[in-house]
């Protein structure tokens, strides 16, 4: 079984988000980058599914050389090899096209991504890759089991879950629950240095979206404190002042 896991290089979750250049660019100064947390979940499940010689896991990232430490982290967690498509990721459409171009003749049985990246929160790449490759895609999955050529998947839906099967090649985006994120051990970290990291060129593709400006949410007012023994006052404020109940 050959599994491809798409990983994104994102600001650490504790990052305070700021912008420069008249709010047209994300301010990267002082920002630590990590493997997107959901992608770690996808990667961990891929490693579990191929453990004991049952297959291989390749990670792919679309990005410039600065992303290599993040890719090495994925190798340290346990991926067998890695590919970087050498281009600044413009948007999900661009990224998905690059991944699909790489994957189209490589015969991966399964492609996994995280449910979304924590920077642009797209939820887009998995389904777009699925469409470019004309294979089924299942978004925001909570569980993935594979038996021969058939996978059984649990997917979240509003107020419940859906269990489905898919046979043959597919791509899925993983949410919490699919696997516990693995922590690299010393051996993993050592071997990550020597695992293959191929760099390939990007293909040209038309631009479809462009972020022109960023905004940060308006600061909230100060909190109105209500004494603990006056819960009826809170209810009345929520009713008549905030008008939410």
């Amino acid at each position: 079984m050959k599994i491809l896991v798409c990983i994104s290089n994102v600001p650490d979750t504790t990052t305070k988000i700021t912008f420069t250049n008249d709010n047209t660019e994300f301010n990267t100064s002082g920002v630590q980058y990590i493997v997107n947390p959901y992608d770690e979940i996808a990667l961990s499940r891929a490693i579990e599914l191929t453990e004991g010689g049952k297959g291989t896991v390749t990670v792919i990232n679309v990005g410039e050389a600065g992303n290599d430490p993040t890719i090495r982290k994925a190798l340290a967690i346990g991926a067998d090899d890695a590919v970087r498509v050498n281009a600044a990721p413009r948007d999900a459409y661009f990224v998905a096209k690059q991944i699909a171009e790489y994957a189209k003749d490589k015969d991966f049985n399964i492609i996994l991504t995280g449910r979304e990246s924590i920077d642009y929160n797209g939820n887009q790449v998995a389904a777009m890759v699925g469409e470019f490759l004309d294979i089924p895609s299942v978004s925001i999955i909570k569980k993935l089991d594979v038996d021969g050529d058939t996978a059984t998947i649990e997917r979240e839906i509003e107020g419940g879950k859906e269990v489905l099967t898919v046979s043959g090649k597919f791509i899925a985006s993983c949410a919490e629950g699919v696997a516990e994120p693995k922590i690299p051990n010393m051996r993993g970290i050592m071997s990550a240095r020597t695992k293959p990291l191929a760099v390939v060129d990007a293909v040209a593709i038309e631009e479809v979206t462009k972020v022109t400006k960023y905004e940060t949410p308006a600061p909230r007012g100060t909190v109105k404190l209500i004494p603990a023994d006056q819960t009826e006052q809170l209810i009345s404020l929520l009713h008549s002042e905030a008008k939410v109940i």
Partner: protein
Amino acid sequence: MSVLVYVEQAEGKFKKSVFEAVSYAKAIADQQSTNLTAISIGDVTDSELKELGKYGASKVLNVSTDQLKTFVNQAYASVIAAAAEKEGADIVVLSNSFSGKGLAPRIAVKLKAGLADGAVELPSTDGKFSVKKTAFSGKAFAITELTSANKVIALNPNAFGVKENATDAAIEAFTADVKQSDLGTVIKEIVRATDKVSLPDAELVVSAGRGLKGPENWGMIEELAALLGAATACSKPVSDADWRPHSEHVGQTGIAISPNLYIAIGISGAIQHLAGVSSSKVIVVINKDPEAPFFKVADYGIVGDAFEVVPKLIEALKAHKA
């Protein structure tokens, strides 16, 4: 040129988020001086389809075949894209629901369209077609210009609201070719907790954290939520410890929500938690630690022990309702 909105049904019914998407799509159609068509897939009665007229859909395409009774991402995307082509729709609107998130990107690729997901406002009308969308898990917004001729927008729940706009909806049967290869996924089972309010599109949410000490203490949280008609949520350590299901975990690595009211009980307000909830319209925090960071973003707060405050809050709410 026209606008097409996909209306997602669950067991033959439309939810509030669908009427919201139709209201939003109608406002875009008005902006562009064009008309709005809705497309529904699955078994939905004519009277339910007619409901869409209330929010401004003047035409409703109804696709109902055995193959498409249940949701199949790939096939639904094909049908919606075919409808957009037939209607000459250059803008497709969907709810940014679990299914919408899987569909919108496929439709975007089929139509070679830019996709703005997590949209929170109407597109700009300054000549460029730009959509404000959430980014960095609610820590910021990205104004995203869709530069392609066709455009797809997935609207965040509770971002626009439901707006009535009475029109008489003409219902038309629609068929589109579905390839066998589009039917690659097969649904075996759907489990819906019918008595519970669904978290992503809930208007009111009661959420609790590690301050509750253990899963056995969630009774009062559920009681409060039931009284309000609210959904329940939790912080990450709570779902990690299996006190609550993963589907209730909100935050940067959980679900991002923007209800009208978010009540956070025994949650510290760590940056990763706030990332997914800070766009809630009104935030109430109950925490025994006056220094808890959550109070900095709250509108209303009670400094106190949840085990004393929540039962009193339940009593006060019962009295208010009576």
